[in-house]
Each structure stands twice: as structure tokens, then as C-alpha cells.
């Protein structure tokens, strides 16, 4: 009744899953229950090893028969079978393209209330739980309350502290045999085409490094911006002028006639901030501008402005980011 079940599916442990366990622990502290983890997929047992020390009571590993690849249909059906009979207060997962479709389907199959991509827990008792969600393209917050003794929820990984593994505290790995016809006759998995770029998509990225004409082209400032983007795990974007000049391909254009983005952090380098560009990025939560022209309009919208020559400042910034990252891992 008080337990929290974390779903890791497919069983390829990712950064977000540690945050989901962190979120589950926050919830379990309030209910006084324990955290269990269900890993689902062909390599579930091996993947479970990677979560040893996460503080879970039990690590369940299930490889449903006849389910070779991830499909929402088969995964939702097998999870439903797994927790049939269990009485978890919350069933949680990190928001991902898979859980975005598995959880609502699961809610329909098991008739439970569900919510998605929450950023905080507000209240939690036996019959009701409320979460904070970001709505209206992240411009507003609201409280969503789910009635009932069991609910489904996905959490936004960036908002929760990832659990730190303590390898000495081990949990039993329990292999679960799930039987049934899980694969949907009407669904066929064909293939997965890995994204060509190492960098995240502009629309999805938490951080965007964006360049303007001040970067002076593909032989000068743009490699610096690319290096910074890679150091930060950020997407790379640019202004219309940069795209028109052929320094970056079309799909990199941020602005009214390109992509409209709202990342958590937008780093504008050598970019003056013409209205067409501002229209495409003004909803970024934090804007950093590096420009040597102190009158550049970008400074008017920037949260942090650095008046400096980008050819000096960006290499320093890359070095600082790298040293910070080395220190923290």
C-alpha cells in the first residue's frame, strides 16, 4: 500500500532512471514504504546489476516471452500483468519517448489515474497525491491531484536528484517469469535508426549553444561553439544570417522562420539578437549572451551577459566547463 514501484523499461539503464529512483525515494519517504524496481526487456537481469546499490528493496528483472523489441503494446501489457496483485501507492518512471506512450496505455488497461512529466511532489497521502507540472510551453506551473490508492506518474529527470549508488548496499535481483500473449498482433517493430548527430535535437535540448555572424564563419568561431556544445551536451543552433551564409545547415536555424525553442539554457555567442531571432528563443528559461558589442539587443533579454571577445571568452568557458565536469565525476 505504501510502496513505490519504479519501472525501467526498456531495461537499458539511462541517466533519467537514476533520477526516477531519486523521485521514488522522495515519495517513499512520505509514504513510509519501500522502493522496488522493475526492469523490463531482453537483458533485464544484466541491466539490474547496474542498479545495485540504488537503495531499492528488490530489483525485479523480467524478460517477457516473445517480446524481443520494445513496443508500447507489449510493454504495457506485461507491466499490467506484473503488478496485478501488487498494491503499490505509486508506479513511477522517468519521462521518455517510451514512457510517454506506455504509461497512458497502462492507465487505460488498469484503470488507474495517471499524470506525466511532473517536476515536484506537493502532497501525498493514502487516497490522494498531488504533483507540480509545467504547462503552456513551460510558462506556467499547476498542481495536479490524483485521487485513489494507486496512481501512475512519470517525472522530468532534470528536476530530481539522481540516486547515488552505494555498492555496499545490495538488493536481491529477482527474475520474474511473465507469461501471456504480450506481443500485439497488429504491431511490428522494424528498426531503430540512431540519430546521426551526437548532439541532441534543437527542440529537445536542455541547453542550446547558438551562434551569430560574430563567430565569423566555419573556420573561426563555429568550431569553438561546437566544442562548447559538446562539452555541455548541448544542441547547436544559429541565426538566419549564419544559415544564409551557409555556415550551418538549414535545420540549425533558430528564429521566427526557423525553429522556435525553449531550452533551460540558451547560450548566444556573437549574436546580436535581431527580432526574428528573439521571436524564436525568447521563451528560453535562461539566456546567456557573449558579445563584444555592448549595445547588442541580445543583452536586453539576457539573464547573464558577458561583454567580451568570443574568441577569448569561449575557449576559457570550454576549459572551465571541462574542469568542472572532471571535478564532479
Amino acid at each position, binding site marked *: 500500500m505504501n510502496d513505490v514501484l519504479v519501472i525501467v523499461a526498456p531495461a537499458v539503464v539511462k541517466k533519467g532512471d537514476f533520477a526516477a529512483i531519486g523521485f521514488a525515494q522522495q515519495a517513499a519517504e512520505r509514504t513510509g514504504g519501500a522502493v522496488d524496481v522493475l526492469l523490463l526487456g531482453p537483458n533485464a537481469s544484466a541491466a539490474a546489476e547496474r542498479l545495485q546499490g540504488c537503495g531499492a528493496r528488490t530489483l525485479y528483472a523480467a524478460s517477457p516471452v516473445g517480446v524481443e523489441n520494445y513496443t508500447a503494446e507489449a510493454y504495457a501489457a506485461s507491466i499490467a500483468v506484473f503488478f496485478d496483485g501488487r498494491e503499490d501507492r505509486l508506479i513511477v518512471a522517468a519521462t521518455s519517448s517510451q514512457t510517454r506512450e506506455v504509461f*497512458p496505455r497502462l492507465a*487505460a488497461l488498469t484503470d488507474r*489515474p*495517471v499524470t506525466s512529466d511532473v517536476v515536484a511532489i506537493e502532497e501525498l497521502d493514502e487516497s490522494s497525491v498531488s504533483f507540480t507540472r509545467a504547462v503552456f510551453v513551460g510558462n506556467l506551473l499547476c498542481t495536479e491531484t490524483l485521487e485513489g490508492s494507486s496512481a501512475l506518474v512519470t517525472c522530468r529527470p532534470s528536476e530530481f536528484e539522481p540516486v547515488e549508488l552505494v555498492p555496499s548496499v545490495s538488493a536481491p535481483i529477482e527474475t520474474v517469469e511473465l507469461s501471456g500473449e504480450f506481443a500485439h498482433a497488429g504491431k511490428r517493430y522494424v528498426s531503430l535508426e540512431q540519430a546521426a548527430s551526437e548532439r541532441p535535437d534543437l*527542440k529537445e535540448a536542455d541547453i542550446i549553444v547558438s551562434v551569430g555572424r560574430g563567430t565569423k564563419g566555419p573556420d573561426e568561431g563555429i568550431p569553438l561553439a561546437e566544442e562548447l556544445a559538446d562539452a555541455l551536451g548541448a544542441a547547436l543552433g544559429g541565426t538566419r544570417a549564419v544559415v544564409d551564409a551557409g555556415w550551418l545547415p538549414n535545420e540549425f536555424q533558430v528564429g521566427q522562420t526557423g525553429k522556435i525553442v525553449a531550452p533551460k539554457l540558451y547560450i548566444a555567442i556573437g549574436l546580436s539578437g535581431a527580432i526574428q531571432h528573439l521571436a524564436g528563443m525568447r521563451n528560453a528559461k535562461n539566456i546567456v549572451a557573449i558579445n563584444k558589442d555592448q549595445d547588442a539587443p541580445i543583452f536586453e533579454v539576457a*539573464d*547573464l551577459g558577458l561583454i567580451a571577445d568570443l574568441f577569448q571568452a569561449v575557449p576559457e568557458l570550454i576549459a572551465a566547463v571541462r574542469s*568542472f565536469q572532471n571535478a564532479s565525476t
Partner: protein
Amino acid sequence: MKILVSIKRTPQRDARIKVDEGGQLQLGDVKFEVNPFDELALEEALRIKESRSDDTEVVVVTVGGEECQEQILAALAMGADRALRVDTRDELDRLQIAKVLAAVVERESPDLYLAGKLAYDDESSQIPAMVAGLLGWPQASQASKIELTEDGAIANVTCEVDDGLEHVGVSLPAVVTADLRLNEPRYASLPGIMRAKKKPSDVIPLSDLGDLGARRVSVSNYRGLPAKEPGVKVASVDQLVDELQARKLI
């Protein structure tokens, strides 16, 4: 072939939504539109219709009050053949709405159910998958490409997933949701709206659609984000990095 597209009335995408002290949305001056992702789904339905030699019918459905008629008209203006509105002013939760839509699907028996991957207002991204679950239909989410086989039996869909592009095939009937790159929707302009006024548009009372169960999810206390600090100028890269770390941005 029959394609059902569910559409939602949402505040215009540029609108800056305000909130009153009681945590209620202030929507008085706000203009509404068809949820942009649902518009992508409708455009795709229209393109499928245009590319097929059979008499494909595109039906749009929405759940809500009289005010949704404006969006129904816009959808018909884009080229939908027929519209349905499940009339209700009750606040329903998403699973209840999914049950309503599943009941509509059972009445209409479409071959394909299309919808946007999420709604611009609540951004929950849940209802189409719930409908698929309730109906036991296969689903393909966040499609950037949909190709139907000539016999209309299978949809080959490219889905935008976190790791890249996933290619799947779904046998119809199925639920597919539209992502941003699927297409560029056409514009609903004056003559289309005039033609739309002559198209059939039915209203179904909510009570006709059976038991929806209790409402279990409610939304309250809308509020703005914590006020943004006014921008500051930093003197050096070191100071910039300190600020970024203090704000937990890197």
C-alpha cells in the same frame, strides 16, 4: 477508408496566458485555435485522403462546449468532411475523455485514428495512447512519416523517439500521433470557412456515450514561474561559470 482525427481547442500558440490570484487561468482576452499538433494530424489525414483513390472520409471529433464550434469550423475549413462534437461542459479527466473518444470510435469504426502528440495547453501527451489501450488497438507515437499500404491494411510509421527514428508497422485500425516534422499544415482561410459552414457537423450528448467512471485527476492552483531575476552583466568567464553553477544550469 475512414480517418478519425481528434482535435482540442487550445489557447493560440503565441498567447501569453495570465493567472489570477486564485490560481485560475485568465482566458478572457485569449484567442483559441486548434491545438497545433492536432492540426498536423488533420493535415496528414487530408493528405492521405488526397493520395488515395478510394473515397476516404476525414471526420474530426472534439469534446467540449459550444465554444469549440469555432475550432470545428477551422478543421472543416482545412478540408475535413464531417465533424462531431461531444457536448459537455463538465470537467473531465484525461482517462474520461479517452473513454468518450473510444466510445466515438466504436460508433464510427474508423480505420485510422490520428491525433497530435500532445496538446499545447496541458502538455500531457496521454489521451491517444489511452484510447489505443481502451480499444486494444496498436499505436504509433510521434510520427514524422506515415505511409499506408495501397490496400489500406498497414501503416508504416517513422516515430521520433529519444534515440533517433524508430520504424514500426501497425495494422489498421490503429492510433497514430503526429509530431512536428510530419508535415506543414494548410491554412484555414475565408473561402474554406465559408465552405465549412455547409458541411455536416453533429453534436452528441455526453450522456449517450455510456459510463465514464469517476473523475480522479483535477488541476488547480495555476501560477507563474518564479519571477525571473533581472539580467546581470558579468565581468569575466569565471564569474559567468560561477553564476551558471549557482543556478544549477551546468
